[in-house]
């Protein structure tokens, strides 16, 4: 059983990556933070009695489920919005899904510029590269992105990733391979070789 301290340390160690996971999926800071908080609460409320070694996999499962729940709710909300808009005789835009990704990259780059010993030019350049990489990861198909992040960023093995994604190990390998090649091609096209 994980102690409160172990649980706290675990959450502290994963919270930033979890936020990024959620942000890549939902593309909104506040929604991503809500998803991460819900995931943390669900972990502590329902799975605090599990051994510390099992927490990473459980947390990833919870996080992915909550992200999917968010999209399910958004889908339902969009259906009602479309219906109501049709009744009012006008159509609204689709919303965030059509937002210009370059715009978010620019905002992120501007937001993330920080201090340090390197020159301002280097900092901006590095931040822009990070933003472009993140932008390209965000543009990957959902399943590919999930597999890539869990497998390589969370360092979960194929079986764990498959368990968290609810698919076969073969699918995980395929998703990972496709994600890597798509990402490499996209970054190369933008002149970046990480």
């Amino acid at each position, binding site marked *: *059983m*994980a*102690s*409160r*301290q172990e*649980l*706290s340390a675990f*959450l*502290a160690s994963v*919270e*930033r*990556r979890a*936020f*990024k996971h959620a942000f890549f999926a939902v593309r909104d*800071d506040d929604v991503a*933070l809500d998803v*991460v*908080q819900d995931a*943390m*609460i669900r*972990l*502590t*409320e329902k799975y*605090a*009695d599990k051994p510390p070694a099992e927490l990473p996999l459980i947390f990833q499962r919870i996080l992915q489920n909550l992200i999917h729940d968010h999209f399910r709710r958004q889908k339902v909300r969009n259906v009602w919005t479309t219906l109501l808009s049709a009744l009012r005789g006008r159509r609204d835009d689709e919303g965030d899904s059509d937002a210009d990704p370059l715009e978010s990259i620019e905002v992120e780059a501007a*937001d*993330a510029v*920080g201090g340090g010993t390197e020159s301002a030019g280097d900092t901006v350049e590095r*931040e822009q*590269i*990070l933003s472009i*990489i*993140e932008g390209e*990861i965000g543009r990957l198909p959902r399943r590919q992105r999930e597999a*890539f992040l869990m*497998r*390589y*960023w969370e360092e979960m093995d194929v079986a764990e990733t498959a368990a968290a994604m609810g698919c076969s190990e073969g699918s995980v390998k395929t998703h*990972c*391979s496709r994600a*890597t*090649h798509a*990402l*490499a091609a996209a970054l190369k096209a933008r002149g970046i070789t*990480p």
Partner: protein
Amino acid sequence: MNPEKIFAHRVTAALDQSAERLPWRVAQRLERARQVALARMPAELAAQTAGVLATAGGPVLRTGPGWPWRALAAVVPPLAVAAGLYGIVVWTDTRDAEETAEVDAAVLTDELPISAYADQGFGVYLNNTTSRP
């Protein structure tokens, strides 16, 4: 390591950098979210794990059956030691002060003037007189 993994590790290294440089507002909200989540940990589990830690760590305070007595048992011995040390210090100071006062009183009430004790010749005279049989 195959090229695919090398590429993936470079990308995730970039992601690590990015995750470490989250805006302050986001970092603060994540910390608050963690505190909220920990506060929602079931009370019985929190108490159990606190008990386990207290046992593993030695005689520290914890809640549970009979905890006031355990708390007293943990607090009283150090307090007694501290009180004892303080008593010893006070007693030593008082004794020193009394001894000094006795010497001062003897010097002041002596027929010999105090300036005589500072005189080197008087010291030699005393040595000579006390060394004679």
